[in-house]
Protein backbone atom coordinates (compact mmCIF):
# COMPACT_ATOMS: atom_id res chain seq x y z
CA UNK A 1 0.00 0.00 0.00
CA UNK A 2 2.70 2.47 0.97
CA UNK A 3 4.26 4.30 -1.92
CA UNK A 4 1.11 4.21 -3.99
CA UNK A 5 -1.89 5.49 -2.09
CA UNK A 6 -5.19 5.27 -3.94
CA UNK A 7 -6.77 8.49 -5.18
CA UNK A 8 -10.53 8.38 -5.65
CA UNK A 9 -13.16 10.93 -6.57
CA UNK A 10 -15.46 11.81 -3.67
CA UNK A 11 -18.12 13.59 -5.66
CA UNK A 12 -17.27 16.29 -8.20
CA UNK A 13 -15.46 18.71 -5.87
CA UNK A 14 -13.26 16.52 -3.71
CA UNK A 15 -10.73 13.72 -3.90
CA UNK A 16 -10.11 11.07 -1.29
CA UNK A 17 -6.59 9.76 -0.78
CA UNK A 18 -6.37 6.34 0.89
CA UNK A 19 -3.06 5.81 2.67
CA UNK A 20 -4.07 2.52 4.24
CA UNK A 21 -7.02 0.64 5.61
CA UNK A 22 -6.34 0.49 9.34
CA UNK A 23 -6.07 2.59 12.46
CA UNK A 24 -2.38 2.66 12.99
CA UNK A 25 -0.05 5.47 14.18
CA UNK A 26 2.42 5.05 11.29
CA UNK A 27 -0.27 5.42 8.62
CA UNK A 28 -1.92 8.28 10.50
CA UNK A 29 1.41 10.14 10.75
CA UNK A 30 1.80 9.69 7.01
CA UNK A 31 -1.65 11.26 6.47
CA UNK A 32 -0.75 14.16 8.78
CA UNK A 33 2.62 14.72 7.13
CA UNK A 34 1.09 14.61 3.67
CA UNK A 35 -1.64 17.07 4.69
CA UNK A 36 0.94 19.53 6.05
CA UNK A 37 3.03 19.16 2.92
CA UNK A 38 0.02 19.62 0.65
CA UNK A 39 -1.03 22.68 2.61
CA UNK A 40 2.40 24.22 2.02
CA UNK A 41 2.36 23.39 -1.68
CA UNK A 42 -1.15 24.49 -2.57
CA UNK A 43 -1.95 25.44 -6.13
CA UNK A 44 -4.87 27.74 -7.03
CA UNK A 45 -8.15 25.82 -6.77
CA UNK A 46 -7.15 23.59 -3.87
CA UNK A 47 -9.55 24.04 -0.93
CA UNK A 48 -9.95 22.44 2.47
CA UNK A 49 -7.78 19.53 3.53
CA UNK A 50 -9.46 17.18 5.99
CA UNK A 51 -7.29 14.42 7.46
CA UNK A 52 -8.68 11.31 9.10
CA UNK A 53 -7.25 7.99 10.37
CA UNK A 54 -5.86 6.71 7.10
CA UNK A 55 -7.48 8.98 4.53
CA UNK A 56 -7.32 12.61 3.48
CA UNK A 57 -10.15 14.47 1.75
CA UNK A 58 -9.17 17.42 -0.43
CA UNK A 59 -11.74 19.86 -1.79
CA UNK A 60 -11.02 21.50 -5.13
CA UNK A 61 -12.69 24.04 -7.37
CA UNK A 62 -13.64 22.31 -10.63
CA UNK A 63 -13.84 25.69 -12.28
CA UNK A 64 -10.05 25.90 -11.96
CA UNK A 65 -8.90 22.29 -11.79
CA UNK A 66 -9.88 18.98 -13.34
CA UNK A 67 -9.78 15.74 -11.35
CA UNK A 68 -6.67 14.62 -13.22
CA UNK A 69 -4.88 17.89 -12.45
CA UNK A 70 -5.62 17.47 -8.76
CA UNK A 71 -4.52 13.86 -8.95
CA UNK A 72 -1.29 14.84 -10.67
CA UNK A 73 -0.60 17.52 -8.07
CA UNK A 74 -1.19 15.04 -5.24
CA UNK A 75 1.03 12.40 -6.88
CA UNK A 76 3.83 14.93 -7.27
CA UNK A 77 3.74 15.42 -3.50
CA UNK A 78 4.04 11.70 -2.70
CA UNK A 79 7.60 11.79 -3.93
CA UNK A 80 8.78 14.53 -1.56
CA UNK A 81 10.38 13.46 1.69
CA UNK A 82 7.19 13.28 3.67
CA UNK A 83 8.40 11.75 6.85
CA UNK A 84 11.03 14.41 7.29
CA UNK A 85 8.24 16.97 7.48
CA UNK A 86 8.01 18.39 10.97
CA UNK A 87 6.02 16.40 13.46
CA UNK A 88 4.53 18.49 16.23
CA UNK A 89 6.52 17.47 19.32
CA UNK A 90 4.16 19.15 21.79
CA UNK A 91 2.43 16.86 24.27
CA UNK A 92 -0.76 18.36 25.68
CA UNK A 93 -1.25 17.45 29.35
CA UNK A 94 -4.89 16.78 30.16
CA UNK A 95 -6.15 16.79 33.76
CA UNK A 96 -8.94 14.26 34.35
CA UNK A 97 -11.11 13.40 37.32
CA UNK A 98 -11.67 9.66 36.95
CA UNK A 99 -14.72 7.61 37.94
CA UNK A 100 -17.83 8.50 39.89
CA UNK A 101 -20.36 10.70 38.16
CA UNK A 102 -17.57 12.01 35.95
CA UNK A 103 -16.72 8.59 34.54
CA UNK A 104 -19.77 6.36 35.06
CA UNK A 105 -18.41 3.48 32.94
CA UNK A 106 -15.04 3.06 34.69
CA UNK A 107 -16.29 0.07 36.69
CA UNK A 108 -17.56 -1.58 33.52
CA UNK A 109 -14.21 -1.05 31.80
CA UNK A 110 -12.48 -2.54 34.87
CA UNK A 111 -14.79 -5.55 35.04
CA UNK A 112 -14.58 -6.11 31.29
CA UNK A 113 -10.80 -6.39 31.59
CA UNK A 114 -10.78 -8.07 35.03
CA UNK A 115 -8.81 -5.30 36.67
CA UNK A 116 -9.64 -2.60 39.22
CA UNK A 117 -10.78 0.97 38.51
CA UNK A 118 -7.45 2.20 39.96
CA UNK A 119 -5.61 0.06 37.42
CA UNK A 120 -7.73 1.54 34.62
CA UNK A 121 -6.53 5.00 35.69
CA UNK A 122 -2.91 3.85 35.94
CA UNK A 123 -3.01 2.30 32.48
CA UNK A 124 -4.88 5.16 30.88
CA UNK A 125 -2.41 7.77 32.20
CA UNK A 126 0.63 5.67 31.30
CA UNK A 127 0.68 6.25 27.54
CA UNK A 128 1.25 9.26 25.35
CA UNK A 129 -1.44 9.20 22.68
CA UNK A 130 -1.43 10.42 19.11
CA UNK A 131 -4.53 12.41 18.14
CA UNK A 132 -5.66 10.58 15.00
CA UNK A 133 -8.71 12.60 14.12
CA UNK A 134 -10.60 15.65 15.30
CA UNK A 135 -14.23 15.97 14.52
CA UNK A 136 -16.88 13.28 15.01
CA UNK A 137 -18.60 16.19 16.70
CA UNK A 138 -17.15 19.70 16.95
CA UNK A 139 -13.69 19.42 18.55
CA UNK A 140 -13.99 15.70 19.43
CA UNK A 141 -10.46 14.26 19.60
CA UNK A 142 -9.97 10.54 18.90
CA UNK A 143 -6.59 9.19 19.93
CA UNK A 144 -4.77 5.95 20.53
CA UNK A 145 -3.75 3.37 21.05
CA UNK A 146 -4.78 2.44 24.59
CA UNK A 147 -3.03 -0.40 26.49
CA UNK A 148 -4.67 -3.74 25.71
CA UNK A 149 -5.81 -4.16 29.34
CA UNK A 150 -8.28 -1.26 29.10
CA UNK A 151 -9.68 -1.81 25.61
CA UNK A 152 -13.47 -1.99 25.77
CA UNK A 153 -16.17 -2.07 23.08
CA UNK A 154 -18.52 0.87 22.76
CA UNK A 155 -21.89 0.95 24.50
CA UNK A 156 -24.63 -1.18 22.94
CA UNK A 157 -26.90 1.85 22.98
CA UNK A 158 -25.21 5.22 22.73
CA UNK A 159 -26.08 7.87 25.31
CA UNK A 160 -28.26 10.70 24.09
CA UNK A 161 -26.20 13.28 25.99
CA UNK A 162 -22.55 13.05 26.91
CA UNK A 163 -21.28 16.09 28.86
CA UNK A 164 -18.54 18.25 27.35
CA UNK A 165 -15.06 17.23 28.58
CA UNK A 166 -15.98 13.56 28.98
CA UNK A 167 -13.09 11.17 28.42
CA UNK A 168 -14.04 7.82 26.96
CA UNK A 169 -12.72 4.55 25.63
CA UNK A 170 -14.00 3.22 22.32
CA UNK A 171 -12.35 -0.08 21.39
CA UNK A 172 -8.61 0.53 21.02
CA UNK A 173 -9.04 4.30 21.17
CA UNK A 174 -9.55 6.93 23.79
CA UNK A 175 -11.18 10.25 23.11
CA UNK A 176 -12.58 13.45 24.53
CA UNK A 177 -16.00 14.92 23.82
CA UNK A 178 -15.41 18.65 23.35
CA UNK A 179 -19.07 19.66 23.34
CA UNK A 180 -22.15 17.99 24.79
CA UNK A 181 -23.34 15.49 22.21
CA UNK A 182 -24.72 11.99 21.79
CA UNK A 183 -22.06 9.31 22.11
CA UNK A 184 -21.31 5.64 22.60
CA UNK A 185 -17.83 5.57 24.14
CA UNK A 186 -17.31 4.16 27.64
CA UNK A 187 -16.92 7.20 29.88
CA UNK A 188 -14.12 6.91 32.44
CA UNK A 189 -13.60 10.53 33.49
CA UNK A 190 -13.93 14.18 32.66
CA UNK A 191 -11.51 17.05 32.07
CA UNK A 192 -12.22 20.59 33.28
CA UNK A 193 -10.47 22.03 30.20
CA UNK A 194 -12.61 23.84 27.66
CA UNK A 195 -11.84 21.97 24.46
CA UNK A 196 -14.10 23.85 22.12
CA UNK A 197 -14.55 27.59 22.30
CA UNK A 198 -15.95 29.67 19.48
CA UNK A 199 -14.07 32.72 20.77
CA UNK A 200 -10.77 30.99 20.02
CA UNK A 201 -9.24 30.47 16.64
CA UNK A 202 -8.92 27.62 15.97
CA UNK A 203 -11.95 26.84 18.12
CA UNK A 204 -10.81 23.28 18.83
CA UNK A 205 -8.13 22.69 21.47
CA UNK A 206 -6.80 19.62 19.67
CA UNK A 207 -5.61 19.26 16.12
CA UNK A 208 -5.00 15.98 14.38
CA UNK A 209 -1.34 15.09 14.85
CA UNK A 210 -1.11 16.47 18.41
CA UNK A 211 0.02 14.26 21.27
CA UNK A 212 -1.82 14.01 24.56
CA UNK A 213 -1.19 12.57 28.00
CA UNK A 214 -3.71 12.36 30.83
CA UNK A 215 -3.11 12.90 34.55
CA UNK A 216 -5.54 12.33 37.43
CA UNK A 217 -6.93 15.17 39.52
CA UNK A 218 -9.35 15.25 42.43
CA UNK A 219 -12.98 16.28 42.31
CA UNK A 220 -12.13 19.49 44.21
CA UNK A 221 -9.39 20.30 41.75
CA UNK A 222 -11.83 19.65 38.88
CA UNK A 223 -14.42 22.05 40.27
CA UNK A 224 -11.73 24.69 40.94
CA UNK A 225 -10.43 24.39 37.37
CA UNK A 226 -13.96 24.57 35.99
CA UNK A 227 -14.56 27.87 37.79
CA UNK A 228 -11.25 29.26 36.50
CA UNK A 229 -12.12 28.19 32.97
CA UNK A 230 -15.54 29.84 33.13
CA UNK A 231 -13.95 33.07 34.37
CA UNK A 232 -11.65 33.08 31.37
CA UNK A 233 -14.61 32.46 29.08
CA UNK A 234 -16.63 35.26 30.68
CA UNK A 235 -13.62 37.61 30.44
CA UNK A 236 -13.17 36.82 26.74
CA UNK A 237 -16.84 37.28 26.22
CA UNK A 238 -16.83 40.71 27.88
CA UNK A 239 -13.84 41.74 25.77
CA UNK A 240 -15.94 41.20 22.69
CA UNK A 241 -18.45 43.77 23.82
CA UNK A 242 -15.97 46.45 25.00
Amino acid at each position, binding site marked *: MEGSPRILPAGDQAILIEFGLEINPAINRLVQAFARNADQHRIPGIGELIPSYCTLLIYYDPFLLSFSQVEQWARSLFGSNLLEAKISPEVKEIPVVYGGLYGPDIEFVARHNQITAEEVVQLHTRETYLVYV*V*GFSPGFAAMGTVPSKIRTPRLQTPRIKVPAGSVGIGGIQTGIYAVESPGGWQLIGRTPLTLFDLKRNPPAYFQAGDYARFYPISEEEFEKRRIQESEVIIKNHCKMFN
Partner: protein
Amino acid sequence: MRAFEVLNPGVFTTIQDLGRPGYMKYGIPASGIADRFSGQVANLLVGNPPGAALLEVTLFRLELLALNDLVIAVTGGNLSPTVNRDPLPMWQALPIQKGDRVAFRARKKGFRAYLTVQGGFSGQEFLGSRSVFVRGLMGTPLQAGNILEFEDPEGKSIPQGNFPQEMIPSFSILNPLRVILGPQEERFSPKGIETFLTSEYRVSSQSDRMGYRLEGLAIEHLQGADIISEPISRGAIQVPGDGLPIILLWDAQVSGGYVKIANVITADLDRLAQIMPGQSLRFQSATLEEAHLAWRMEILRFERIKRAIEGHG
Protein backbone atom coordinates in the same frame (compact mmCIF):
# COMPACT_ATOMS: atom_id res chain seq x y z
CA MET B 1 -31.48 48.63 13.16
CA ARG B 2 -34.56 46.55 13.85
CA ALA B 3 -36.04 44.75 10.85
CA PHE B 4 -38.66 42.33 12.19
CA GLU B 5 -40.25 40.93 15.28
CA VAL B 6 -40.91 37.21 15.03
CA LEU B 7 -44.61 36.63 15.70
CA ASN B 8 -44.49 32.94 14.77
CA PRO B 9 -41.13 31.21 14.15
CA GLY B 10 -42.62 28.71 11.70
CA VAL B 11 -41.59 25.08 11.38
CA PHE B 12 -37.85 25.78 11.19
CA THR B 13 -36.36 29.12 10.22
CA THR B 14 -32.68 29.95 10.47
CA ILE B 15 -30.32 32.74 9.49
CA GLN B 16 -27.93 31.51 6.80
CA ASP B 17 -25.20 32.96 4.62
CA LEU B 18 -22.61 31.13 2.53
CA GLY B 19 -21.38 29.27 5.61
CA ARG B 20 -18.01 28.72 7.24
CA PRO B 21 -15.74 26.63 5.06
CA GLY B 22 -12.28 26.02 6.54
CA TYR B 23 -13.20 24.40 9.85
CA MET B 24 -14.04 20.88 8.76
CA LYS B 25 -10.73 19.61 10.14
CA TYR B 26 -12.01 20.65 13.58
CA GLY B 27 -15.29 18.83 13.09
CA ILE B 28 -17.34 21.84 12.00
CA PRO B 29 -19.34 21.50 8.79
CA ALA B 30 -19.54 24.45 6.41
CA SER B 31 -23.34 24.84 6.81
CA GLY B 32 -24.82 27.76 4.84
CA ILE B 33 -27.75 28.39 2.49
CA ALA B 34 -29.14 25.05 1.26
CA ASP B 35 -30.47 26.25 -2.11
CA ARG B 36 -27.63 28.58 -2.99
CA PHE B 37 -29.08 29.74 -6.28
CA SER B 38 -32.34 30.97 -4.75
CA GLY B 39 -30.65 32.49 -1.72
CA GLN B 40 -28.03 34.38 -3.68
CA VAL B 41 -30.62 35.68 -6.18
CA ALA B 42 -32.71 37.03 -3.26
CA ASN B 43 -29.72 39.04 -2.11
CA LEU B 44 -28.92 40.36 -5.58
CA LEU B 45 -32.53 41.54 -6.00
CA VAL B 46 -32.22 43.97 -3.07
CA GLY B 47 -28.67 45.03 -3.96
CA ASN B 48 -26.90 42.95 -1.30
CA PRO B 49 -23.71 40.97 -1.85
CA PRO B 50 -24.89 37.46 -2.90
CA GLY B 51 -23.73 35.92 0.37
CA ALA B 52 -25.40 38.35 2.79
CA ALA B 53 -27.21 36.78 5.76
CA LEU B 54 -30.87 35.97 5.07
CA LEU B 55 -33.68 33.82 6.45
CA GLU B 56 -34.04 30.24 5.29
CA VAL B 57 -37.71 29.43 5.79
CA THR B 58 -38.81 25.80 5.91
CA LEU B 59 -42.39 24.95 4.99
CA PHE B 60 -44.79 27.45 6.60
CA ARG B 61 -46.24 29.35 9.56
CA LEU B 62 -43.42 31.88 9.80
CA GLU B 63 -44.93 35.28 10.57
CA LEU B 64 -42.95 38.49 10.90
CA LEU B 65 -43.87 42.04 11.86
CA ALA B 66 -41.86 44.78 10.11
CA LEU B 67 -40.38 47.22 12.63
CA ASN B 68 -39.11 49.63 9.97
CA ASP B 69 -39.72 50.49 6.33
CA LEU B 70 -37.75 47.81 4.49
CA VAL B 71 -36.97 46.50 1.03
CA ILE B 72 -37.26 42.71 0.99
CA ALA B 73 -37.15 39.89 -1.55
CA VAL B 74 -38.48 36.35 -1.29
CA THR B 75 -37.20 33.54 -3.54
CA GLY B 76 -36.89 29.75 -3.45
CA GLY B 77 -39.78 27.38 -2.92
CA ASN B 78 -43.27 28.82 -3.13
CA LEU B 79 -44.58 28.72 0.45
CA SER B 80 -47.44 31.14 -0.30
CA PRO B 81 -45.85 34.24 1.16
CA THR B 82 -48.16 37.15 1.97
CA VAL B 83 -47.90 40.78 3.05
CA ASN B 84 -50.87 41.75 5.23
CA ARG B 85 -52.76 38.77 3.74
CA ASP B 86 -52.16 39.83 0.11
CA PRO B 87 -49.98 37.53 -1.98
CA LEU B 88 -46.35 38.64 -1.85
CA PRO B 89 -44.77 38.69 -5.32
CA MET B 90 -41.67 36.50 -5.27
CA TRP B 91 -38.37 36.89 -7.17
CA GLN B 92 -38.42 40.69 -7.05
CA ALA B 93 -37.48 43.52 -4.68
CA LEU B 94 -40.47 44.70 -2.69
CA PRO B 95 -40.73 47.76 -0.43
CA ILE B 96 -42.77 47.12 2.73
CA GLN B 97 -43.70 49.45 5.55
CA LYS B 98 -43.32 49.51 9.27
CA GLY B 99 -46.24 47.55 10.72
CA ASP B 100 -46.64 45.24 7.72
CA ARG B 101 -46.95 41.54 8.41
CA VAL B 102 -45.11 39.02 6.26
CA ALA B 103 -46.26 35.41 6.54
CA PHE B 104 -45.69 32.05 4.84
CA ARG B 105 -49.00 30.26 4.71
CA ALA B 106 -48.85 26.99 2.79
CA ARG B 107 -46.40 25.03 0.72
CA LYS B 108 -47.13 25.05 -3.01
CA LYS B 109 -43.79 24.14 -4.54
CA GLY B 110 -40.33 23.39 -3.18
CA PHE B 111 -39.45 23.15 0.50
CA ARG B 112 -37.34 26.18 1.47
CA ALA B 113 -37.91 29.86 0.80
CA TYR B 114 -35.42 32.67 1.25
CA LEU B 115 -36.28 36.07 2.67
CA THR B 116 -33.70 38.79 2.54
CA VAL B 117 -33.73 42.45 3.51
CA GLN B 118 -31.82 45.26 1.85
CA GLY B 119 -28.67 45.75 3.97
CA GLY B 120 -28.71 42.11 5.10
CA PHE B 121 -29.57 40.65 8.51
CA SER B 122 -26.94 41.31 11.16
CA GLY B 123 -26.97 38.92 14.11
CA GLN B 124 -24.06 37.16 15.71
CA GLU B 125 -21.18 35.77 13.69
CA PHE B 126 -19.58 32.47 14.60
CA LEU B 127 -16.19 31.74 13.03
CA GLY B 128 -16.78 34.30 10.33
CA SER B 129 -20.33 33.26 9.40
CA ARG B 130 -23.85 33.98 10.62
CA SER B 131 -25.12 30.58 9.48
CA VAL B 132 -26.98 28.92 12.32
CA PHE B 133 -25.55 25.49 13.14
CA VAL B 134 -27.57 24.21 16.06
CA ARG B 135 -25.48 21.17 17.07
CA GLY B 136 -22.33 23.28 17.14
CA LEU B 137 -23.96 25.79 19.50
CA MET B 138 -23.81 28.43 16.78
CA GLY B 139 -27.14 30.15 17.07
CA THR B 140 -30.66 28.75 17.27
CA PRO B 141 -33.67 28.62 14.95
CA LEU B 142 -35.95 31.66 15.22
CA GLN B 143 -38.15 31.82 18.28
CA ALA B 144 -41.31 33.80 18.87
CA GLY B 145 -40.49 37.24 20.18
CA ASN B 146 -37.02 37.41 18.57
CA ILE B 147 -36.10 40.80 17.16
CA LEU B 148 -34.15 40.48 13.91
CA GLU B 149 -31.70 43.28 13.26
CA PHE B 150 -30.40 44.41 9.89
CA GLU B 151 -27.62 46.62 8.58
CA ASP B 152 -28.76 50.08 7.57
CA PRO B 153 -28.65 50.19 3.75
CA GLU B 154 -28.07 53.96 4.08
CA GLY B 155 -30.22 55.10 1.23
CA LYS B 156 -28.72 52.64 -1.26
CA SER B 157 -31.02 52.22 -4.24
CA ILE B 158 -32.27 48.86 -5.43
CA PRO B 159 -30.84 47.42 -8.65
CA GLN B 160 -32.33 48.66 -11.93
CA GLY B 161 -32.77 45.36 -13.75
CA ASN B 162 -35.13 42.46 -13.25
CA PHE B 163 -34.88 38.79 -12.60
CA PRO B 164 -35.82 37.06 -15.85
CA GLN B 165 -38.97 35.24 -14.69
CA GLU B 166 -38.40 32.36 -17.11
CA MET B 167 -35.32 31.53 -15.03
CA ILE B 168 -37.36 30.69 -11.91
CA PRO B 169 -36.46 27.08 -11.11
CA SER B 170 -39.31 24.62 -11.61
CA PHE B 171 -38.41 22.64 -8.46
CA SER B 172 -39.55 19.60 -10.37
CA ILE B 173 -38.85 16.28 -8.70
CA LEU B 174 -39.17 14.35 -11.94
CA ASN B 175 -35.56 14.57 -13.08
CA PRO B 176 -33.20 12.17 -11.32
CA LEU B 177 -30.40 13.54 -9.16
CA ARG B 178 -27.09 12.99 -10.84
CA VAL B 179 -24.39 11.21 -8.83
CA ILE B 180 -20.74 10.28 -9.12
CA LEU B 181 -20.36 6.67 -7.98
CA GLY B 182 -17.86 5.99 -5.20
CA PRO B 183 -15.64 6.26 -3.33
CA GLN B 184 -16.67 2.78 -2.10
CA GLU B 185 -18.87 1.51 -4.92
CA GLU B 186 -16.81 -1.70 -5.01
CA ARG B 187 -18.23 -2.52 -1.58
CA PHE B 188 -21.66 -3.09 -3.15
CA SER B 189 -22.86 -6.00 -5.26
CA PRO B 190 -23.76 -5.25 -8.90
CA LYS B 191 -27.34 -5.89 -7.82
CA GLY B 192 -26.93 -3.31 -5.03
CA ILE B 193 -25.67 -0.67 -7.48
CA GLU B 194 -28.54 -1.49 -9.81
CA THR B 195 -31.09 -1.15 -7.00
CA PHE B 196 -29.62 2.23 -6.13
CA LEU B 197 -29.68 3.53 -9.70
CA THR B 198 -33.05 2.18 -10.78
CA SER B 199 -35.41 2.34 -7.82
CA GLU B 200 -37.31 5.21 -6.30
CA TYR B 201 -36.51 6.48 -2.80
CA ARG B 202 -38.80 8.41 -0.53
CA VAL B 203 -37.36 11.16 1.66
CA SER B 204 -38.07 10.14 5.25
CA SER B 205 -39.59 12.49 7.80
CA GLN B 206 -36.36 12.13 9.77
CA SER B 207 -34.56 14.42 7.37
CA ASP B 208 -33.08 17.80 8.16
CA ARG B 209 -30.17 20.07 7.25
CA MET B 210 -27.75 17.31 8.36
CA GLY B 211 -29.03 14.81 5.89
CA TYR B 212 -31.85 13.16 4.02
CA ARG B 213 -32.70 9.64 5.12
CA LEU B 214 -34.26 7.66 2.30
CA GLU B 215 -36.81 4.86 2.36
CA GLY B 216 -37.14 2.25 -0.36
CA LEU B 217 -35.41 -0.92 -1.51
CA ALA B 218 -32.40 -1.90 0.57
CA ILE B 219 -29.06 -1.74 -1.25
CA GLU B 220 -27.02 -4.93 -1.05
CA HIS B 221 -23.51 -4.68 0.40
CA LEU B 222 -20.77 -7.13 -0.45
CA GLN B 223 -18.93 -7.23 2.88
CA GLY B 224 -20.68 -5.17 5.48
CA ALA B 225 -21.33 -1.47 5.81
CA ASP B 226 -18.48 -0.37 8.03
CA ILE B 227 -15.25 1.34 7.11
CA ILE B 228 -12.70 3.13 9.22
CA SER B 229 -14.17 6.59 9.66
CA GLU B 230 -13.17 8.97 6.93
CA PRO B 231 -14.05 12.55 5.96
CA ILE B 232 -17.39 13.04 4.21
CA SER B 233 -17.90 15.39 1.27
CA ARG B 234 -21.10 17.36 0.82
CA GLY B 235 -23.76 15.31 -0.94
CA ALA B 236 -22.16 11.96 -0.07
CA ILE B 237 -24.58 9.02 0.07
CA GLN B 238 -23.72 6.57 2.81
CA VAL B 239 -25.41 3.21 3.14
CA PRO B 240 -25.48 1.79 6.68
CA GLY B 241 -26.15 -1.85 7.50
CA ASP B 242 -29.90 -1.64 6.85
CA GLY B 243 -29.17 -0.83 3.20
CA LEU B 244 -31.13 2.43 3.20
CA PRO B 245 -29.17 5.39 1.86
CA ILE B 246 -28.61 8.66 3.71
CA ILE B 247 -27.55 11.77 1.78
CA LEU B 248 -25.25 13.89 3.95
CA LEU B 249 -25.76 17.59 3.53
CA TRP B 250 -25.04 21.08 4.80
CA ASP B 251 -24.84 20.50 8.56
CA ALA B 252 -23.68 16.86 8.40
CA GLN B 253 -20.99 15.43 10.61
CA VAL B 254 -17.59 15.83 9.01
CA SER B 255 -16.54 12.22 9.38
CA GLY B 256 -18.33 8.89 9.17
CA GLY B 257 -17.80 5.16 9.22
CA TYR B 258 -20.29 3.81 6.68
CA VAL B 259 -19.53 2.93 3.07
CA LYS B 260 -20.53 5.53 0.52
CA ILE B 261 -22.05 4.37 -2.74
CA ALA B 262 -22.06 7.74 -4.51
CA ASN B 263 -22.11 11.51 -4.17
CA VAL B 264 -24.74 13.91 -5.54
CA ILE B 265 -23.13 16.32 -8.00
CA THR B 266 -22.79 19.93 -6.86
CA ALA B 267 -24.99 21.28 -9.64
CA ASP B 268 -27.93 19.22 -8.32
CA LEU B 269 -27.67 20.11 -4.62
CA ASP B 270 -29.92 23.19 -4.93
CA ARG B 271 -32.62 21.03 -6.47
CA LEU B 272 -32.20 18.48 -3.69
CA ALA B 273 -32.62 21.27 -1.11
CA GLN B 274 -36.14 21.86 -2.44
CA ILE B 275 -37.29 18.24 -2.14
CA MET B 276 -39.33 17.73 1.00
CA PRO B 277 -39.85 14.73 3.25
CA GLY B 278 -42.50 12.44 1.79
CA GLN B 279 -41.47 13.17 -1.79
CA SER B 280 -39.59 10.67 -3.92
CA LEU B 281 -36.38 10.89 -5.85
CA ARG B 282 -34.22 8.83 -8.17
CA PHE B 283 -30.53 8.72 -8.91
CA GLN B 284 -28.67 8.65 -12.19
CA SER B 285 -24.98 7.99 -12.65
CA ALA B 286 -22.92 10.80 -14.23
CA THR B 287 -19.27 11.14 -15.17
CA LEU B 288 -16.98 13.71 -13.57
CA GLU B 289 -16.81 15.54 -16.90
CA GLU B 290 -20.60 15.80 -17.02
CA ALA B 291 -20.70 16.99 -13.41
CA HIS B 292 -18.04 19.63 -13.99
CA LEU B 293 -19.75 20.84 -17.14
CA ALA B 294 -23.07 21.08 -15.29
CA TRP B 295 -21.40 23.10 -12.53
CA ARG B 296 -19.79 25.42 -15.07
CA MET B 297 -23.21 26.01 -16.65
CA GLU B 298 -24.65 26.79 -13.21
CA ILE B 299 -21.99 29.43 -12.59
CA LEU B 300 -22.50 30.98 -16.02
CA ARG B 301 -26.28 31.00 -15.54
CA PHE B 302 -25.85 32.79 -12.22
CA GLU B 303 -23.52 35.38 -13.79
CA ARG B 304 -26.05 36.07 -16.55
CA ILE B 305 -28.81 36.55 -14.00
CA LYS B 306 -26.57 38.79 -11.92
CA ARG B 307 -26.00 41.05 -14.93
CA ALA B 308 -29.71 41.10 -15.74
CA ILE B 309 -30.65 42.10 -12.18
CA GLU B 310 -27.95 44.76 -12.07
CA GLY B 311 -29.45 46.17 -15.25
CA HIS B 312 -26.63 45.40 -17.69
CA GLY B 313 -28.54 42.48 -19.14
